[in-house]
């Protein structure tokens, strides 16, 4: 009789709680990558996750580690509070673009500027998902949302704010990369980037953020496959992928 070998199993970095995300949304993939990184680096049992406000508000139920749930936009402040009293633990925030780039932009910039040794997982899908598809600070020019029904008018509301580019100007940021999970090649790049960000935190190199250009098929009004294509064809030209800062690479 042939021996049974395990080829694949769900990461121990996630609980068994069913995810609350919509079909075709990339939050699930990103959760998996984060959880796998925590397991691979053997840091899961000293990690504290910060759930933010938005679709990922329940992420404290999904990551299989200690967690805190932050008020809207305050994740980086809460992470700072924890990390300063527990400097040897691993602390990460998991935030969407409304939470991080709009209401929480001050907390994000100042945490980066202080070089807080935390990791920020920034899921940018250019829309407010949980509240039903309103315009986000990262919505694309002309993008139709429930609060920009004729398409985002950049003369009236400004253009999509580019967080990675902004944070790259800050000296104390250690690692900054924008990735996507819209196809297998980019998925592997994203996996590597997320793991590297946590590796940097483990090595106490300072602030790291991975921005993941992401989908929201339901509120974009698209089928999942079309949403993946929209990431590739519409979002990435506005939010180009790549490494914006890598202090490790600079030093080595």
């Amino acid at each position, binding site marked *: 009789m042939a021996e049974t070998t395990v080829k694949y199993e769900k990461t121990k970095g996630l609980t068994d709680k069913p995810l609350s995300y919509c079909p075709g949304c990339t939050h699930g993939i990103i959760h998996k990558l984060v959880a796998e990184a925590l397991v691979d680096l053997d840091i899961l049992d000293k990690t504290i996750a910060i759930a933010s406000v938005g679709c990922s508000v329940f992420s*404290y139920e999904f990551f299989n580690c200690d967690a*805190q749930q932050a008020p809207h936009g305050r994740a980086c402040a809460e992470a700072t509070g*924890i990390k300063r009293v527990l400097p040897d633990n691993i602390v990460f925030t998991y935030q969407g673009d409304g939470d991080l780039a709009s209401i929480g932009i001050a907390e994000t910039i100042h945490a980066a500027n202080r070089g807080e040794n935390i990791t920020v997982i920034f899921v940018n899908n250019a829309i407010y998902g949980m509240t039903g598809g309103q315009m986000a600070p990262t919505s694309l020019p002309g993008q139709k949302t429930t609060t920009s029904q004729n398409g985002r008018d950049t003369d009236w509301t400004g253009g999509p704010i580019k967080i990675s580019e902004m944070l790259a100007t800050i000296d104390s940021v250690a690692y900054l990369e924008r990735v996507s999970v819209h196809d297998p090649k980019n998925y592997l790049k994203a996996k590597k980037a997320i793991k590297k960000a946590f590796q940097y935190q483990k090595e106490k190199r300072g602030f790291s953020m991975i921005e993941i250009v992401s989908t929201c098929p339901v509120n974009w009004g698209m089928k999942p496959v079309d949403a993946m294509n929209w990431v590739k064809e519409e979002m990435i030209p506005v939010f180009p992928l790549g490494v914006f800062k890598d202090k490790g690479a600079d030093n080595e």
Partner: protein
Amino acid sequence: MAKVLMKGNEAIALAAIKGGVDAFYGYPITPQNEVPEYLSKHLLANGKVFLQSESEVSAINMVYGAAGAGARVMTSSSSPGIALKQEGISYIAAAELPCLIVSVMRGGPGLGGIQPSQADYYQATRGGGNGDYSLIVYAPETIQEVADTIKESFDIADYYRNPVMVLVDGLIGQMMESVDFDKPIKERFLPEKDWATNGTANHPGRRNVANSLQIDPNALEQHNIHLQEKYNLIKKNETRYEMINFDDPEYVIVAYGTMARICRSAIEMLNKEGIKVGMIRPISLFPYPEKAFDEIPKNAKGILCAELSMGQMLDDVLIANNGRHKVGFFGRSGGMLPDPEEIVDAIKNFSERVVK
């Protein structure tokens, strides 16, 4: 340590260190700046955490994080700054995390002024944050009482897993008095913080989560019932007040903090004139010392609520009095402090002061 002469704000800071504070997060605002200034020097020198945040909003959320992680943590601010902290305070109370919030009141509303005031009684006892929550609020009168209260507040916060607010005004923050920092505080049995989010390595087999989200209305109602039960226990155990000159008084003044100090002088002057006036001095504002009002003689002519506001504690006085006596009000605001003679006059012309 013998008695030392110390400024109120610095005494707050030193008392916090004596009380075992691990971390301070805050943002500058007058008239409480000596608190963070003193702590920045002395906490960092002792391997503890002092961090100046980018805003009050951020500071209170740093407190939330550190409290959740199990640290003894505090912030301090003044009126408009405490307004900005209300969101985080509601979350901390909801998640049942212990911390100390020092509020050094100045005149309002809006940017108001920087002179002493008691116009944030509602803010402290009713809260500006959302939902059914309460802080434990103490309003000490002397710098010695400030130091004792601050020291003990960490234990009280830990015991009940509830934020404690120590409420003073800019006068107490800025004046100097002699203080003994070694006065013993009540010993309490404090359970281990086995709920702290400090990594599952510290508590294998159990994930700890600091959270205020309850999407199931049933669960949220149960949580609110649990909180109310806790607040009732706090009412039973932690109500504090002082009865002053309560020898068959004709009139009773109710005042706290700086206003109570001014009223003490007024009471002496009135007694010399043969008018017997006593005072209820609430030390805990939540829980409010309602039972003290049962000690007011039936034939007393009235109760004068005196505040450095346009009448906020007055609500609690009316509730506690429950229609038994006439209640009058005397208030100054905007940072103006009355002379004791003004209180004397208010008692002598009590009928003009009656509100109910």
